[in-house]
């Protein structure tokens, strides 16, 4: 086994959303060039009554896979590039690489972070690059590979060893927001590099975590609004990132 492709979906999904998820999941396999015996595919199916949430699902996928590299992909990510998985795995041939993604920023954290009083925007990412279909709307198009400071959560491919060393995902501290920021900071804390691979893809967005059902779930299960979780997550990450932000790859 070389690679686990892992995702979570929120059920029941109906109509167009269901079709989109099916299309996205199919695109990962259709465009795969890793031998099927080396590929592990796991889907976490969340239902209203047993919804693990975003980071909880990532933790479940980590615990329920065995491959040394895990591709955590959003279920609304459609991959268009043949051989994307071999391209990603080549990055992991370098033992200093701990985390790979399809979209990322060259700087994480503002220049004045920790020098001036806290503000949520100090955790922002800068100079965003990707090869999604509408890359120019989000930053700049980038088709090659390079080191970056931080990745977007729609595609996080992690060396299992990194999660082992970190003790898994921060399920309690970051139930939903900022888990991608956490992944990059954690990689840097353990001395790994973070790489962007400009895989051609589409991030459709807005089909799972941002639905009204998900919002309702946060309110019921955690007793907090999405806005409150957003604020708390950023404050926690602000302290977690001390000594590692701002991170620059320019």
């Amino acid at each position, binding site marked *: 086994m070389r690679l686990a492709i892992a995702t979570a979906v929120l059920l029941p999904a109906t109509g167009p959303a269901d079709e989109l998820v099916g299309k996205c999941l199919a695109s990962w396999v259709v465009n795969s060039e890793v031998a099927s015996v080396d590929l592990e595919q796991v889907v976490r199916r969340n239902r209203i009554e047993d919804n693990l949430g975003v980071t909880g699902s990532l933790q479940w996928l980590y615990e329920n896979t065995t491959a040394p590299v895990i591709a955590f992909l959003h279920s609304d990510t459609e991959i268009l590039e043949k051989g994307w998985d071999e391209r990603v795995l080549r990055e992991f041939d370098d033992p200093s690489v701990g985390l790979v993604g399809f979209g990322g920023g060259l700087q994480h954290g503002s*220049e*004045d*972070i*920790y*020098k*001036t*009083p*806290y503000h949520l925007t100090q955790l922002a990412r800068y100079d965003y690059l990707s090869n999604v279909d509408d890359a120019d709307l989000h930053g700049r198009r980038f088709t090659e590979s390079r080191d970056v400071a931080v990745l977007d959560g729609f595609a996080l491919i992690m060396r299992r060893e990194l999660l082992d060393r970190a003790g898994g995902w921060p399920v309690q501290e970051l139930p939903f927001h900022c888990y991608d920021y956490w992944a990059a900071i954690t990689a840097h804390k353990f001395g790994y590099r973070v790489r962007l691979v400009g895989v051609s893809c589409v991030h459709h967005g807005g089909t799972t975590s941002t639905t009204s059902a998900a919002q309702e779930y946060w309110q019921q299960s955690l007793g907090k609004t999405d806005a409150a979780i957003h604020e708390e997550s950023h404050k926690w990450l602000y302290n977690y990132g*001390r*000594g590692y932000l701002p991170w620059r790859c320019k």
Partner: protein
Amino acid sequence: MNSKPTPLLIISDAPEMQGGLSRICRDVAANISQSPLYRVATLSRGCRGSRKLPWQQYTIREHIPGNAWGEADLPWVWQDFAGRERGVVMTIYDPTRCLGFTLPDYCAFPETSEFMRGDHFDLWGYVTLDSTGPGDRLSALPANVLLGYHRLLAYTKWGEGAIRRSIGDVAADARRLTWLPHGIELDRWPLCIKETAQARMHPFLHEGERLVGVVATNQPRKDWGLAASACREIMLQDKTVKFWWHVDLDQRHWSIPALLADFGLGGRTQVTANLSHDDLCWRLNACDLTLHPGLGEGFGYPIFESLACGSPALHGDYAGGADVLRQCGWEKWLIRPENYRVEGLHNQIRPVFDPMDWADRALAVLSETHDRDALRASVAHLDWKTLWPSCWLPWFQEGLK
């Protein structure tokens, strides 16, 4: 990164003393000496040495003419401290004090000039700036001094901007110019119950009276004349206000007794010097407001210690102290200068204030209620406990790459 600690010699004011430069020298040396990355020593004027400071302390031989800032001492001190090891010399000084280190023509000691040409260390500067010159830049001489450094660090974002404008972006980037604020030990500046703190000032301060504090050294840059003028205006408009002035010496550049007498403040003002740290803390807690009449601060410790103790702070809108006060969210407490003047050998611009502006703003602040917890929270980011590992230690680590 080296496995062996890199020799780091800090040249600044004596770390066992109480002045601002002494404090930042002591704090930086104390913190970085905890790291296995560096082996620390200090070279300072007037240093008597202290066994409480766990690093080698060298004293500048001030009796040697021209050796004001350690120019004659650097070669032998480095030889003694580092031998043949390559390392870092870091000055925490105004650039005008460092002419002899970076401009050989200004060094009275040929041996030092020759030594500085050798590749013994990287020269880093934590650059003290409390003013700019014409064009909002440094005068040519201090700007040239900065070009002799390998790495530059400003006290504030304002300081970084001033250096950048003075030496240009290319030179600034080549020297990895950035800025880092001083830290304060927040635990040592606790928030007390204000009423209790004010009660401790009885019988000077009675119930229903308010207290305005002024904490500054007695030197030309601290405008005690402005403070006295402003205090008089406050007193004339509000009879419930009393004043507490804390100053290191009552006769030096200013005569504190003469100011009190001539401005009619004697009966309403308590003057202190040499307070214990605890006494200083509870007096700051007792204040309803503090005035900071410096005509340009590199950083301005008392401003932020006042906020930590829950007292609003008024300061002039000029230089680094104003920059940090603005970052803390208190722009409304910055007093705009009426005008500017130029002074000294390096054409330093100093603000000129109308004391009435200070008095009016002070009376406005005194008429408001303030969330003392929020005042303290606004300086929480300056606590060494978090500032050091978040910003300073990474800066020192980066220096070894």
